[in-house]
């Protein structure tokens, strides 16, 4: 695999802990019976999400299809996205940007959890994905001194996780990366916003930002396609994605321009066609504060959900026609994951986990575990 790093780097738990100094809360399956229950559990669907606890502290929880917490992993700082290997055997949970840690867990095998620290001069952006065979993990990262995005490539098949190298993301601020169904290309949403850890999460280039969605060869990292929106929308940060049944990426944006504008926030992007922007009823658009928090497809990939936590609404789209299907009011709802055939599970910052059987029905609150605030994303890892 021709990668841009000069030599592979190995990671160890010790390296992880020392990188966190005295702060490290040892990641572990919390609760006495929970980890064991997960290992021995039937084949019920499971979901994972980062959380914040009202008592303080962050972690990753594994939930069942009734919204009940089955396992907990504590994290030393706020988590964000979770990548799941195709067979659901393994997941990787990333620190929220500009964090520098990720954990890799094999929840059904008893294999010990592993941790990765970002390479020197890099931090994670919070998302990643696995190769089709589960051997490689692709993580979006910031080469912050050069202000360019990269996709770090990790071999997670051995006892020691190795960073094989990195691909150029051909943009700034790569936020989410997906693997196409064939497993040979990566789709990267470059949010376009420059940040530097010296300035925390401050946005450094709002005037000149130029987000893009690129298609990269999964083996070589070669740029296969690159899409940018019209210049008038250069401040629409393209961030979160889900694939529909035709392999097109549905991209949710966050607009950094004037608060009085209401640009389209959802784009459909395929490899060889120009991006299609989708409109919303104006009355609804006025309520979203120009912000889409996450994007998910139903398991049959026929319906797309885009959550808008600032507007307290989750919107639904017909994946085939691009038609807007309606919305649900879910206060601070952001995490969305497919469940059953054509349904969604939606998590919110008030601890609620809601089941939506179909877009026209009323969402049903399944659970509200005490003291949990669900973070931006929820991922199905055995559906």
């Amino acid at each position, binding site marked *: 695999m021709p990668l841009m790093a000069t030599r592979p780097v190995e990671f160890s738990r010790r390296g992880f802990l020392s990188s966190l100094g005295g702060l490290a809360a040892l990641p572990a399956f919390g609760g006495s019976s929970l980890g064991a229950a997960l290992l021995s559990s039937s084949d019920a669907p499971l979901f994972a999400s980062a959380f914040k606890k*009202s008592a303080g502290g962050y972690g990753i929880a594994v939930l069942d299809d009734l919204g009940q917490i089955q396992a907990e992993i504590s994290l030393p700082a706020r988590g964000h996205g979770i990548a799941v290997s195709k067979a659901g055997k393994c997941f990787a949970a990333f620190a*929220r940007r500009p964090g520098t840690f990720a954990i890799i867990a094999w929840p059904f095998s008893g294999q010990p959890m592993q941790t990765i620290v970002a390479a020197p001069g890099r931090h994670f952006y919070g998302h990643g994905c696995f190769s089709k065979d589960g051997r490689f993990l692709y993580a979006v990262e910031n080469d912050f001194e050069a202000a360019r995005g990269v996709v770090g490539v990790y071999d997670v098949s051995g006892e020691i996780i190795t960073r094989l190298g990195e691909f150029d993301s051909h943009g700034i601020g790569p936020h989410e990366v997906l693997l196409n169904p064939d497993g040979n290309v990566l789709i990267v949403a470059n949010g376009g916003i420059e940040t530097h850890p010296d300035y925390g999460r401050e946005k450094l280039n709002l005037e000149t930002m130029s987000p893009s969605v690129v298609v990269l060869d999964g083996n070589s990292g070669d740029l296969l396609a690159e899409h940018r929106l019209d210049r008038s929308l250069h401040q629409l940060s393209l961030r979160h994605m889900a694939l529909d049944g035709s392999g097109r990426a549905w991209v949710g944006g966050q607009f950094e321009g004037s608060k009085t504008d209401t640009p389209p926030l959802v784009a459909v992007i395929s490899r060889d066609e120009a991006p299609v922007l989708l409109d919303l009823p104006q009355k609804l658009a006025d309520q979203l504060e120009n912000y889409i*928090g996450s994007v998910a497809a139903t398991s049959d990939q026929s319906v797309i959900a885009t959550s808008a936590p600032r507007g307290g609404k989750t919107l639904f789209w017909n994946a085939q026609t691009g038609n807007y299907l309606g919305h649900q009011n879910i*206060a*601070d709802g952001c995490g969305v994951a497919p469940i059953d055939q054509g349904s969604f599970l939606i998590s919110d910052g008030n601890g609620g986990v809601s089941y939506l059987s179909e877009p026209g029905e009323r969402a*049903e*609150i399944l659970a*509200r575990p005490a003291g949990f605030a669900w973070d931006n994303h929820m991922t199905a890892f055995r559906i």
Partner: protein
Amino acid sequence: MKRIFLSAAAALIAWPALATDYTQPIQDMIAGYIQPETTKFAAATAELPSSVKSVCAAPSTENAAEFKTVFSDVVKEFARVHFLRIGPMVDEDRISRLAFQPDPRGIGQRQIRKLYSAKDATALSADSLAEKSVAVQGLTALQLIAFDKNGNVVLGAESESRDFTCAYAAAISENVAAIALAVRDAWASADGYSQTLLATGGAGARYQNEQEALEDMFQTLSTGLIVVRDQNIAPALGSSKDKARPNRIPFSRSGNGVVFLAAEMSGILDAVKSMNLEPIMPEEHVWLIGSMTFEFENAQKTLNNLQPPLRQTFETGDAYSQLSLVVISLNSLQRLVGERIAGALGLAGGFNALDGD
């Protein structure tokens, strides 16, 4: 950077001196609402074990009625504190152990059925019950075993499982009383959670400053209103009247649906009022408090008009449309409390909405 509401930003520019004292509303809410209400809740639950024992020892009409009254009082006092989902109520999963809800798929019922079929003796003492699933150890479990679907007390009544039910109910009632006592004591203690909220900043502090602490307290009230609307009322209304499911209102099985809803709403109102926010609000926003009180009182009036049992009046009376009106009030209250009043005080909003990614 925290995203502060637009109106708040404007207010803070106009009233720079007002952003200073976030301690007073925290102190006022602890002393003026949380401590007295958790004390009342503990006192109500203290009556529960003896009334369970009485009705089990002699299932007379009087004892059944007495149990029903005690249970109703506990539900009412619980409704006034259950939205305080911070600190003591959350520690040791107390809130879920006190009442396992929401539970639209009947997890509690399924687990209780298993206890019965296994004649599980560990459910029969408060100590061992406290170690079991949260779904089987609180008021929602007690309601299931002590009342029939029509709200009649069946606890103590002749049946095959009478003795098991009585022993299990006694264990639940003692467990609930113990948890309520622990909540009361944790709030009453000078070095308890009050201290966490008030002694902010420094190494190991939960909150870096008073504003963060007040934001969390305010957020619990705002979330409380969302729970009333989306979790406690909306499932009962369903998508239309013919799909209504009044039995989805918490504690409606025991005939306490209206008691619960009215008490949680009056509790949230009293909690907001206990903070005495007017002096620290920018003058041009003080009217929000009056507006909120008016809206709460409207909703209360509507709730008080509801004729129990809702399981019947949903079909035959106008309870459905009355409750739909309460939802409209709650929409407006949620905006007032969670957005406008919080905004006027310069407090930040929801977790995902705030500084997302």
